[in-house]
């Protein structure tokens, strides 16, 4: 049986078990990183924010900066820190809008190397599909985009998302509904009809 998040938190804090902390990070890395990638659209920046998030998390868990009350919901607590880190970054970016951004798509040199594995085509197709969907998600209203990313990437419940955004659950649900509907419209309007057909089947 898998230990719960809280059991891993206790193992790390009470017994200095670093492997417990690694398990926590690895268990939730896709969710946290997926959300950050969706918010900042730059792999290098998302990596920075991921590290920054956990620097804050570690400090707060040791009571150095803020605190963690160990009342469950470790992930939603971490997500609130990740969200703040993303918001801080977005605010800073607004101050530097005249500075040209990296032209690449956030991939490192290693990511650009050709993959000759038998699954390369499948991976390429999925990567293209992801990129195509991400472009549409980027066009959503910011509040719709964030609810969609939080629910879809991090798996937080709508109640947790509502608490995180300090709105009612109906507002969170309404934003999600519009996000999905608008996304659908964009997908239908897109020229990539073949891809929609693939996705729907």
């Amino acid at each position, binding site marked *: 049986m898998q230990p719960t998040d809280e059991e891993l938190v206790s193992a*790390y*804090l009470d017994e*200095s078990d*670093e492997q417990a*902390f*690694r398990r926590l*990070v*690895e268990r939730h*890395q*896709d969710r946290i*990183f*997926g959300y950050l*990638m969706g918010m900042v659209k730059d792999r*290098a*920046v*998302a*990596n*920075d924010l*991921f*590290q920054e998030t*956990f*620097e804050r998390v*570690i*400090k707060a*868990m*040791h009571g*150095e900066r803020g605190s963690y009350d160990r009342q469950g919901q470790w992930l939603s607590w971490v997500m609130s820190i990740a969200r703040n880190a993303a918001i801080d970054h977005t605010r*800073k970016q607004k101050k530097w809008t005249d500075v040209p951004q990296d032209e690449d798509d956030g991939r*490192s040199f*290693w990511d650009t190397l050709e993959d000759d594995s038998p699954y390369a085509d499948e*991976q390429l197709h*999925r*990567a293209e*599909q*992801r990129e195509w*969907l991400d472009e549409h998600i980027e066009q959503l209203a910011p509040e719709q985009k964030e609810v*969609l990313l939080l*629910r*879809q990437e991090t798996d937080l*419940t*709508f109640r947790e998302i509502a608490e995180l955004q300090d709105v009612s659950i*109906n507002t969170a*649900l*309404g934003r*999600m*509904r519009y996000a*999905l*509907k608008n*996304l*659908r419209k964009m*997908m239908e309007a897109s020229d990539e009809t073949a891809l*929609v057909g693939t*996705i*729907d089947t």
Partner: protein
Amino acid sequence: MDDRLRLIRYLYDEEVDASALAQRLSDDPDLYREYEELAATKRALDDRPARQPDAAVVDQVVNEARTAASPAAPPSEDRPARAPSHAWTRRLQPAGAALALLLVIGLGWWQGDGTSDGPAADAATPGVIDGTSQQAPATAQTRSSDADAIPAWDDGEELIRIQRRIDRLQARSAPDRWGSLQRVSRP
């Protein structure tokens, strides 16, 4: 709660009364159509591959967690870059302010003392005054344009990010990443 909002919860397996909503779906074709559209969009989103941070970043996070868990231990060489501590500069701020105030008062007193020498003192150095009066505005202008050219870094965060990227690249290109060389046994 509105049925269309409940539909969203239903899609994500959060609806508590799922059987009642399923009944509503079979009774209301518009609601069912909306459900079909939303479900198709969700399937497309679900089908996206997951994204993971660089392994080096996870390693750095775990290193930091280890360091934080054992504060007595000496910091490792791979410890990630941290923001510089400004605690000592904060402590010096009041002293600096007092020193600046004293300097201003001293300059004021010196200036007042200089003018009290009367017109003779002013007339004694006309050439020097003329020379500096021609150069001073140009120097001030140059300094002003220099100051404008320097970006107003409000903190060291960009430097920290660059340092992190360097750390990650170094971690990736570390020799042990490629695995140790295997000895080949010959017959």
